[in-house]
């Protein structure tokens, strides 16, 4: 026995996980330093999907030409990306947006939040071997995309919001379509809980894994479901209301450590599921309050040329705090655009929360922070 132990090679092993790996959610390369199967160190290597968003934005000869590029940052929640950008531009230009536009924007943003969470949850289950919930999530997501397609014409990259308004009005049956979706989607959340959330195998794979304590989350600048999963009640829609979110009644779901430790993968996951329910509540209220009449393009300026100055605006994207810093030098194109992407920040904490776990658990951790590489690299 002793002889064998003496001959064991005790050097560390370095392996690359990715860039082509199904559970890294895109082209992410994780450099793992391993001791057997236990992770000693993780170094995320990014940049495989870098498309120079910020430089492109400076090259454009029009502020509105940047909007299609913001879509392509986080392609899973394109509407929320646009929303953040147009909010920043409207504050910079001091435009008052018509109420109908605000209502449609909120409904769209919340539908997109549900779609994004469905994809995040489905892919998270898929990483852990649960293939069926993934398909069911996609079936539901499809219905949301159909609503988007009928309104905007596109299924993924919408370019729907314009500075000061919207590109076009919603389609005539938008209200009934959305109401129908709300009706059919409510029971599906229960189904998802039966199938995945309270499944014992799933709980065993996620509870007590990748624990992110409250203090660490705050120190790293986490936001969105990752921060809320650690038990911090922080939602920009409530704490720093933008658009018309202060009109709606909804709760901020937080992780409570029900299945294990506070801030583990399961907490982050269940926060997303509960957030979908809250989004449904917001959509319901917004549909009731949506003004019937109104021109959605009336406040859109003909020519966008802001005065000298800069602005930083943050909004709550499905992944967390999305900030846009725009600096203007009184010309037709922005002097500088900087996007503060939540996924990038969350990826930065990966080394801190995955130290000492197994490789199989790293898959769960990466899935639970729900990164989109398009947003990380920009």
């Amino acid at each position, binding site marked *: 026995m002793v002889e064998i132990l003496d001959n064991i090679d005790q050097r560390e092993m370095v392996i690359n996980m990715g860039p082509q790996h199904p559970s890294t959610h895109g082209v992410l390369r994780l450099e793992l330093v391993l001791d057997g199967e236990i992770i000693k160190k993780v170094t995320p290597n990014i940049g495989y999907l870098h498309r120079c968003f910020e430089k492109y934005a400076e090259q454009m000869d029009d502020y*509105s030409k940047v909007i299609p*590029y913001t879509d392509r940052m986080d392609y899973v929640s394109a509407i929320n990306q646009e929303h953040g950008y147009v909010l920043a531009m409207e504050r910079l230009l001091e435009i008052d947006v018509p109420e109908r536009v605000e209502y449609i924007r909120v409904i769209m943003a919340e539908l997109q939040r549900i779609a994004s969470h469905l994809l995040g949850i489905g892919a998270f289950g898929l990483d852990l071997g649960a293939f069926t919930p993934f398909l069911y999530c996609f079936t539901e997501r499809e219905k949301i995309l159909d609503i988007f397609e009928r309104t905007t*014409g*596109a299924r993924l990259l919408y*370019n729907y919001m314009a500075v000061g308004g919207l*590109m076009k009005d919603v389609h005539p049956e938008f209200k009934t379509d959305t109401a129908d979706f709300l009706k059919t989607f409510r029971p599906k959340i229960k189904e998802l809980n*039966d199938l995945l959330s*309270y*499944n014992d*195998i799933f709980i065993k794979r996620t509870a007590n894994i990748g624990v992110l304590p409250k203090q660490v989350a705050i120190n790293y600048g986490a936001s969105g479901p990752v921060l809320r999963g650690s038990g911090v009640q922080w939602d920009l829609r409530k704490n720093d209301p933008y658009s018309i979110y202060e009109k709606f009644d909804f709760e901020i779901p937080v992780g409570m450590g029900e299945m294990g430790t506070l801030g583990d993968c399961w907490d982050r996951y269940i926060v997303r599921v509960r957030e979908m329910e809250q989004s449904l509540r917001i959509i319901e209220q917004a549909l009731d309050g949506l003004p019937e009449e109104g021109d959605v393009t009336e406040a859109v300026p003909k020519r966008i040329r802001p005065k000298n100055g800069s602005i930083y605006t943050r909004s709550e994207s499905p992944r967390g705090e999305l900030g846009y810093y725009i600096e203007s030098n009184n010309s037709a194109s922005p002097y500088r655009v900087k996007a503060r992407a939540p996924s990038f920040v969350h990826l930065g904490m990966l080394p801190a929360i995955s130290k000492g776990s197994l490789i199989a658990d790293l898959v769960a951790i990466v899935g639970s922070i729900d990164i989109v590489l398009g947003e990380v690299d920009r």
Partner: protein
Amino acid sequence: MLNTVKEGWTTFKSIFTGMGVTMRHLFGPSVTLQYPDEKMELPKGARAKLYVNIDDCIGCNLCARACPVNCIDIETVAATSDVDLGKTSTGNPKRFWLTRFNIDMAKCMYCDLCVYPCPTDCIYMVPEYEYSEFDRSGLVYHFSNLKPEMVAEVKEKAEKEAAEKKRQKEEMMRKKAEEKKRKELEKQKLEANKSIKEDDSSSKPENNDS
């Protein structure tokens, strides 16, 4: 021991709850389509392919300028004074021959930004998505309906007219310059006369004195 049994029971139960869900779905209606045989109807406003109604185009270049990726390539030649290109269906007069109107769908990002500025609504997206090609050049769509010889003729004509105009302009300029010169000469002459007169008048008192 009791714990193990309890755990085993919860696992067993959760697996069967999940199985129940899948079982219900098994007997539900199918959500997929057998694609090449069955096709989903795209909504009216679906953005899948750019189309240009070239009869209505006035060659204003607004769509090309609105494009963030420069996938629209337009070349226009001013119509000569002897041709009337007519009007578009929206009533805008056409003043340019469209010798080239190419859209590179390989570059297009389907953002719809070119559609909004069009004054005659002649560029729009159509819900047609089956247009893959083996060669990338096949994705460049030529919308101009002028034949190459026609293009050459139109260009030649326009050049001729432009040259004629230039010549006329130059002639005008030359005439103007001549006129100016003549006037200047006259002015100089006048001034010279004046100075002579002045000389005369100034010399007169001298004479008086003497």
